């Protein structure tokens, strides 16, 4: 019989009410947003009743405006740094047995991420290999049980040291984690709202910052490696073409954009102290009143720095930031306290930024930007407005058309359609999904397609009425026989929505979400809500004949 039990009625209408309540905050977007901000900040929140749900649909970057960046972390950089840092240890270990293995030096023409040690006498090489192998440490990883961190191979008159695959995998993982963490800290320091910082695939990081004017601003903050080093100066040159000895490097002085550097420094590659040992950095001014950055080392950094300055009074040392020499002062006296000041040609803004970067720590590897998009907030607002109008007009046209076609039953379907759109917004708010411009298109498309299930049912009822089984039976049969078609049709559409969601990114994914949710809600409204409406109406009126 065309009867729905009271429990089911309650369930259906409860779902509808909950859905409507969840969707409600989106009708008062600005109001609820400021309320939520206040709650988050721990302030007294007004403007929205606290007993109502306050979840909102997140607006995607294409609607809100902001910057989207996809960066690839150059993990090879980290390999390079690590292998380079092995040299002092190896030099020391080999040096202790120079008597047996003879003179040796670091070869300058080693392939990337390898260390090559050249020997004058070949007799001692086997012993050298043994010593270096002795320095290897076991790698802790799930796959590389018993693996060690370096691989040592012997050549004719040299020994090559490389990182093992297990160690590389470890480093890559660590580098990604660190990069993510540092990018997050840097963006948080600048204080924009709700940034998205996500790892994508093995070596990529997706950064989305709403509300900034250009991707360049974000890049300036996260793209700088901010690797700060204090390196001993070997000599000063006037061109970058000089030959640096093994273990040395030639770096230019820091200059403003577009100005060719005129002074180059030959530096020892291994730093005395690096930025990792900084505990604090603050923008300040030097004694001449120009912007500068004050910094403080941790205990071990302070000791290293103190020892070095004590032993090298009168010698210059270089403060190097991202392979540019910011300044190269001469050590005047023993600097013991572990704090110092970096001066250079900074503007106030630059010194503030530098302090932020130094505080957050250096990126372990460089970033290469593969994709960047900036959407202006006005364009986003235009898109929202246009989408809203299109939604309303689409809705009204479909409502009228359905009423004209199916009369009272069309009205039932229309109620279901309105509930359907509200439910989509309710679900989007509930799961905290992001609404994008194609997502709005997905909703409009759903408005058009949501009535499909009802159309199928109503057409079927019309057919059943022709074979004259009485209205109640016809309605029942209509729903029953239409169900298999409706399910088949929606499952196939759902399959494509799922594939879009899995394979797509950004706006396309937003479209997949609204399309997929739209299928679920439209199935619910078309099958349950209209049926409940029809059952209530039928029980009241008990019509002898119906027209669909």
């Amino acid at each position, binding site marked *: 019989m065309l009867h729905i039990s009271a429990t089911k009625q309650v369930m259906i209408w409860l779902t509808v009410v909950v859905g409507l309540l969840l969707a409600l905050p989106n009708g008062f977007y600005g109001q609820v947003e400021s309320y939520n901000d206040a709650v988050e900040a721990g302030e007294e929140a007004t403007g929205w009743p606290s007993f109502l749900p306050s979840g909102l649909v997140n607006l995607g970057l294409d609607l809100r405006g902001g910057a989207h960046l*996809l960066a*690839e972390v150059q993990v090879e950089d980290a390999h390079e740094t690590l292998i380079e840092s092995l040299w002092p240890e190896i030099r020391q270990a080999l040096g202790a047995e120079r008597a047996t293995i003879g003179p040796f030096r670091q070869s300058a023409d080693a392939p990337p991420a390898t260390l090559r040690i050249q020997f004058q006498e070949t007799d001692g090489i086997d012993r050298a290999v043994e010593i270096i192998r002795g320095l290897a440490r076991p790698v802790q990883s799930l796959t590389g049980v018993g693996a060690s961190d370096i691989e040592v191979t012997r050549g004719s008159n040299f020994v090559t040291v490389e990182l093992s695959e297990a160690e590389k995998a470890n480093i890559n993982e660590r580098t990604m984690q660190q990069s993510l963490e540092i990018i997050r800290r840097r963006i948080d320091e600048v204080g924009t709202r709700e940034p998205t910082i996500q790892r994508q695939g093995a070596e990529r990081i997706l950064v989305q910052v709403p509300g900034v004017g250009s991707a360049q601003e974000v890049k300036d903050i996260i793209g700088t490696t901010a690797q700060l080093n204090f390196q001993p100066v070997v000599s000063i040159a006037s061109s970058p073409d000089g030959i640096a000895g093994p273990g040395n490097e030639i770096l230019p002085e820091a200059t403003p954009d577009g100005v060719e550097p005129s002074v180059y420094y030959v530096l020892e590659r291994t730093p005395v102290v690096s930025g990792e040992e900084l505990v604090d950095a603050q923008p300040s001014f030097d004694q001449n009143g120009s912007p500068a950055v004050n910094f403080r080392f941790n205990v071990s950094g302070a000791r290293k720095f103190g020892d070095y300055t004590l032993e090298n009074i009168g010698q210059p040392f270089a403060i190097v930031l991202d392979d540019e020499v910011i300044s190269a002062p001469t050590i005047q006296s023993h600097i013991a306290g572990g704090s110092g000041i970096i001066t250079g040609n900074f503007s106030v803004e630059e010194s503030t930024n530098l302090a932020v970067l130094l505080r957050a720590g250096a990126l372990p590897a460089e970033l290469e930007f593969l994709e960047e998009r900036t959407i202006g907030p006005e364009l986003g607002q235009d*898109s929202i407005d246009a989408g809203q109008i299109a939604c309303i007009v*689409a809705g009204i046209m479909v409502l009228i058309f359905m009423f004209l076609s199916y009369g009272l039953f069309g009205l039932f379907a229309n109620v279901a359609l309105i509930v359907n759109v509200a439910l989509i917004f309710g679900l989007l708010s509930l799961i905290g999904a992001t609404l994008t*411009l*194609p997502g709005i298109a997905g909703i409009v498309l759903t408005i*058009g*397609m949501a009535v499909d299930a009802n159309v199928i049912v109503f057409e079927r009822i019309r057919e059943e009425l022709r074979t004259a089984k009485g209205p109640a039976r016809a309605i029942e049969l209509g729903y029953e026989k239409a169900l298999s078609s409706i399910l088949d*049709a929606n499952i196939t559409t759902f399959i494509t929505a799922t594939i*879009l969601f899995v394979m797509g990114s950004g706006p396309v994914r937003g479209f997949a979400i609204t399309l997929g949710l739209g299928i679920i809600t439209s199935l619910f409204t078309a099958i349950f809500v209209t049926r409940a409406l029809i059952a209530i109406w039928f029980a009241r009126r008990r019509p002898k004949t119906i027209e669909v």
Partner: protein
Amino acid sequence: MRLRLVKQGTNIDFFSRAKLWLGISGFMMVLAVVSFMVQGLNFGIDFQGGTSIRTQAEAPIVVSEYRDAIEPLELGDVSITEVFDPSFEENQNVAMIRIQAQEGEESVTNETIGQVQTALQAMDPTLTFTAVESVGPKVSGELIQTAFIAVALAVLAILLYIWLRFEWQFAVGAVLALVHDVVLTVGVFSELQIKFDLAIIAAILTIVGYSINDTVIVYDRVRENLRKYKKKDLKDVLNISINETLSRTLMTSVTTMLALLSLFILGGDVIRGFVFAMMWGVLIGTYSSIFVATAILLVLGVKRDWSKKAVAAGTRYGDIDA
């Protein structure tokens, strides 16, 4: 009075000219492929790499002036198009500038963008940049690949689903109809040189979903009628099924079209290409499920005895119980 798109008791013979329809479809597909081979698609930066800049100025746009401003930078292929939309105000003159990926640049650099912005602002100080997007060649290559896989996967998944729910002939018919829709959509984009970007892939997948939706409804009725009319000619059964579902097919197409039309006119220029693809898709999706998918069933022939196995195979959902 009720609005009826299809009169009650309509009985159109859809197969009297089946060969003609298949011929037309085949011919259109060949045209689409030829257009694709000759002209190729107008790939957006998503698939080609490069930079696109959306500008807004108070003064009317003179494309040649823009070109003159950018020319000295020697950036290779630069395309400048003016954008029109009814919602724009008088002093809202929008243009899209597309710059190809610069040689030797694996990733995106802001130097080029900065140069272009400076050059344009020197020409018209009221100019603002409402959107700037850059995609490096590395990513764009992957995006093409992903998009291709996504479409292929969708078609494959549907093939499998229809095969499970119906018979292989239905699956083949549905998928051929889908391929037909996708080919014709790509053909239109190549012929009209509309920008083809990631959103269009989403549109194509939606078309796939919509078209299969339509086809499945017809097929479902075919299966039902095959059980009902065991003695009738396959051609007649197919005809009855199409006629019986015709009203629904047209109703849904019209409501969907109404919604899309309002989006096309009012939804702004940013998604117009996307909406166009979907409108076209609804049109040919409807056509293909009526003419192509069933015609293929007729050509392949289907199993006629559905009486026993159908239930055993679990091809019928339980009664709805609301």
